[in-house]
């Protein structure tokens, strides 16, 4: 069991949909490149700022919706450019004590007034203001230092662009992780007459899956439809006797193991065949789900 396998019993409780693990891998990759760049190619006096902004851009390229790599790179370049420009503007005014105060007020008001369409879009202007103010504390205005900053941003930014371009697409892990969360909830709730599909965990997992469908091959859309059909039919069927419930839990657990191992789920297992023998309707519901999953493995 690796930390970065689809399912990890320690991390699943904290990161149920694999999103944190994906961001961690991406930022980790970028930071290794940045350290190498700092160690062997460049050596600015204070590289932390350049590294931080590159990491913020890398994070944002993954968090903000962007369906293609080109759009992710565009997001990254846009964010790094905005923050870098703010820093350089503030550096230019750092010589003037009250001029700098006026700039801080004007820049803050204008960026918050015209770049924040709603409270959810306030992160970028806030970062621009914050890093701008940090850069103003560097001492008197120095044009050479400001020009050098742009070059350092460009060089460190390359590490971010390389990470975005060559980092593998792990969206399927997010899909599978959310699928496993739904199945785990189902294993616990098979036969529970009070079970509701509006269970927050299941609803959140369905929302995560639906949000990633546009980034995945078409077979995942078919699997999504199969999951919904299964939730609607199997999880609400009141006619399951005790034996069918036990078998239902067993076959769902087998499916979880198959998803975790990234292999096809067999429909000819002993438990599946016994379920078919005692309740063919329940078996058909389960089989439709497994067929949907196996299509993505073919």
């Amino acid at each position, binding site marked *: 069991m690796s930390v970065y396998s689809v399912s990890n019993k320690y991390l699943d409780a904290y990161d149920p949909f694999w999103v944190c693990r994906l961001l*961690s891998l991406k930022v980790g990759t970028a930071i290794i490149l940045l350290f190498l760049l700092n160690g062997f190619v460049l050596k600015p006096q204070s590289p932390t700022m350049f590294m931080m902004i590159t990491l913020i851009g890398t994070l944002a390229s993954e968090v903000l919706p962007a369906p293609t790599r080109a759009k992710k790179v565009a997001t990254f370049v846009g964010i790094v450019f905005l923050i870098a420009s703010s820093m350089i503007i503030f550096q230019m005014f750092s010589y003037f004590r009250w001029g700098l105060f006026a700039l801080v007020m004007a820049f803050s008001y204008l960026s918050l007034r015209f770049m924040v369409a709603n409270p959810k879009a306030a992160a970028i202007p806030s970062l621009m203001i914050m890093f701008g103010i940090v850069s103003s504390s560097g001492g008197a205005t120095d044009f050479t230092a400001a020009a050098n900053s742009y070059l350092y941003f460009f060089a460190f930014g390359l590490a971010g662009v390389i990470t975005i371009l060559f980092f593998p697409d792990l969206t399927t892990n997010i899909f599978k992780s959310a699928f496993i969360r739904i199945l785990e909830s189902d294993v616990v709730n098979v036969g529970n007459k009070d079970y509701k599909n509006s269970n927050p965990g299941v609803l959140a997992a369905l929302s995560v899956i*639906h949000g990633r469908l546009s980034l995945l091959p078409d077979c995942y859309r078919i699997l999504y439809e199969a999951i919904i059909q299964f939730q*609607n039919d199997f999880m609400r069927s009141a006619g399951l006797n005790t034996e069918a419930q036990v078998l239902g839990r067993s076959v769902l657990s087998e499916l979880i193991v198959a998803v975790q191992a990234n292999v096809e789920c067999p429909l000819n297992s002993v438990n599946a065949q016994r379920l078919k023998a005692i309740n063919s309707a329940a078996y058909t519901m389960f089989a439709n789900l497994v067929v949907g999953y196996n299509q993505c493995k073919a």
Partner: protein
Amino acid sequence: MQSLATRNRASQITMLIGVSFLFYQLTNWQHGIWVVISTTAVAAPFSTFLSVQKAQFRFLGTLIGLVITCAVEYYLKFNPSHFPVLGVIVGFLVGFMATKSYRHFIIMITLATCLGFSYMNMPYTSLTPVMFLVDRAMGVFVGVLIFLLMQRFVFGNGNSNLELNEESAETLGKLQKTLQEYVANPTLSSAYKCAADIAANTSALKSYIETAHQTLGTDNSAALQYAKKVALLNRRAVHLLIDEPTVVMHRIEQLLNVTTVKLARSSAITF
């Protein structure tokens, strides 16, 4: 176009940044820049409700982060060659925490910032790193204090209530749109998609309601009661869409009518 509450908040945050920047300039404190950074970071979520919660997390997270940094710096004092490996580990952890929990994220950011400023490409001196930790701690605590004092005694609750009303109206608008989408295409798949959308669209309003006691205190304002009613309406919509054996169309249409009427009323009140 910005709403009234967002416009007011932009002015409030500008004032907050201005006051903390003046504090930094007038005190001539060399590391006073941390005061301005902290007030800007705390105000960054823009919403008053989330900012107050973030201020508490930043205070606590910085404190824990500084204790961990002290331990790591003590370790690095005797093993300076381990810095790159530790740096990469911290980088992985920052990425992991970034979207999950602000409290944990700020612990890692404190560690990363302090280590970065103390060691990276700088000659090591025995006292500088520890002094940097003390400066950062003081800066963050003063910054958070300025934010909390101004929020409580200068800005007050007026804009918070307006913000809550606007969020309620926005959530209602989204509910209306989602229900209309379902009525136009009443399939099983669409019912689940709409239910998941409604749950996701209500998350901001829910977080405002959950943190309202920190901002509004015991003041159970009309805006808060209205927000709770809107959240309840959304829960009912999810229940009707996916919890019943079959979706009863006339009940969905009834709910859509109620939403439309409430939305018209809230628009008349808010704007």
